[in-house]
């Protein structure tokens, strides 16, 4: 018994997370089980090392940035609520959600919020623009040592030139949305499979 959850998830917490993220009851318990298995220190929070212990994530070129996205500004630990809030961005968009309460705040997994997640991956200093340096940093992470500085620089320049419409040599969020040409947003979703046995 002590091998799994050192503390069981209370029903009220599950309800709150359900309202905030849109995950179902069973998805939340399943993801809590995953959270506790990653939490080697068994203190109810995850550190960056806990994420880096996942080999498939450690070899991902953007792994560090993705891990960063889970941690609030300046913090080193993320609790289960924070974990779920970030994962919620990747829930598939359901059609019936669009028709629900239109005056309510936009759900975490809306198309815009998915694109915002990717935008924030580039925009490290959170000034709502991707500068040439920030773009170069991410490019360098993705290609490693295989492309020269000059070639990478010209790729970055060309990308900004194509995307920049207001001439400030940076990419704003709106310019990002248009320039990323993402028609099929399902590419930014992770589908959880839960079956009745």
């Amino acid at each position, binding site marked *: 018994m002590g091998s799994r959850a050192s503390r069981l998830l209370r029903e009220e917490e599950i309800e709150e997370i359900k309202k905030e993220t849109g995950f179902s009851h069973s998805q939340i318990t399943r993801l809590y089980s995953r959270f506790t298995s990653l939490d080697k220190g068994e203190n109810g929070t995850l550190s960056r090392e806990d994420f880096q212990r996942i*080999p*498939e994530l450690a070899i*991902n*070129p953007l792994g560090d940035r993705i891990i960063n996205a889970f941690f609030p500004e300046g913090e080193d630990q993320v609790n289960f609520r924070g974990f779920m809030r970030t994962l919620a961005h990747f829930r598939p968009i359901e059609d019936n959600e669009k028709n629900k309460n239109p005056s309510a705040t936009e759900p975490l997994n809306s198309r815009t919020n998915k694109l915002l997640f990717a935008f924030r991956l580039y925009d490290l200093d959170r000034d709502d623009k991707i500068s040439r340096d920030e773009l170069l940093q991410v490019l360098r992470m*993705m290609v490693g040592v*295989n492309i020269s500085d000059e070639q990478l620089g010209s790729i970055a320049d060309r990308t900004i030139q194509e995307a920049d419409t207001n001439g400030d040599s940076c990419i704003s969020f709106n310019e*990002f949305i248009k320039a990323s*040409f993402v028609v099929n947003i399902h590419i930014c979703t*992770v589908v*959880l499979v839960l079956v009745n046995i």
Partner: protein
Amino acid sequence: MDVFWAGALWALKIWLYLIILLIMIPSMFGFSLGISEIYMTILVKTLEWATLNIQKANSDEGTLKPSSSNGLIQRENGSMEKELEELRRSRPKPPVGGDFTLSDCFYFIRQGIESIVDDQVTQRFTSEELVSWNLLTRTNNDFQYISLKLTLVYGLGIIVRYCILAPLRITLTVIGVSWLVIGTSAVGLLPNWRIKFWLSELVHVMCYRICARGLSATIRYHNRENKPKKGGICVANHTSPIDIVILCTDGCYAMVGQVHGGLMGIIQRAMVRSCPHVWFERSEMKDRHLVTKRLKDHVNDKKKLPILIFPEGTCINNTSVMMFKKGSFEIGTTIYPVAIKYDPKFGDAFWNSSKHSMVSYLLRMMTSWALVCNVWYLPAMHQQEGEDAVQFANRVKSAIAHQGGLVDLQWDGGLKRAKVKETFKEQQQKKYSNMVVRDDSN
């Protein structure tokens, strides 16, 4: 008071005689009185009944559980090239001098998030999750009260396992291990006549059979015509130290391992008196040439027993086979692959060395329902022309994974404790770079 002690001693004597007559002697000589078969039949029926009850209760409530065979996520399983092509499809024109779009990052983001939710590696180092609860406290993850009958059976199970089965099994194991030490030392005193080898094999097999009974092991051997022969190396997937007991009840092997202190050291020194095993000092293990030479010398002596090696190097949870270290495949002799698959319903055989010590693990084994496993002897394999040790190792690994119904993984079991090498990330970066800058020399 004296009457009490006399009575207790008398009861203990009866208990011991019963064990020796009914369990030890039949198992030593390889036949069975049928008591454990009856126990297993009752157990299987009880577990089936429990599963039906739980399923009925779950479907009434509408609870959902993950399908364990597919994992938690529905994956696309496309290659990097395919998925990036898909992402870039809606771009107006292919640019010159560098193929990059801002949306390329989505591929890596999705891969990253998928691995955070469910990855192929970290789950192999913890016990396999059961599809349906098997009435053991330790596998009960979400406690839900189902019915009174089920709880009574569960309670009865606890009494049976802890008060009847566990003492029985502990007694048997103690007898088995002591007999191993005494017997092999005794045989070791004999001069090197033919009869010594025969006796040594007999003592080893008998002791392992007693230990197997001490774990209530029901083992089914398949394809015994492929059993490892002298001068070869037997390789198998590794789940726990009990693998050795499982394999050695059906044949004699030379063990390879590190010299330990304490009880293990006594057992090791006793075993090596009656027939040669390969024990290394801790310092010697680091020298790969020394290790290879000693193993080569052993297999070249045709009188010596086949060596038993677990190339994964660490215990994995029996749902997959991880990378085989190439050392044993460089020796150049016949390899006899063996696949071992435990049935997790009756007890979890995986030894999680970071969570349980050896003693605590053995006690857990003795308080499980039983140990049921299948052992498949696969046809012998040789290194082929033009095949290097790593490819040979992968070929053997795939054969074992295929036979045992296990997932064939390329990841190193050493990732249990060590970090993954940077070279894998560099490979990913190189692959992506090729998609950004088409390599004209190709």
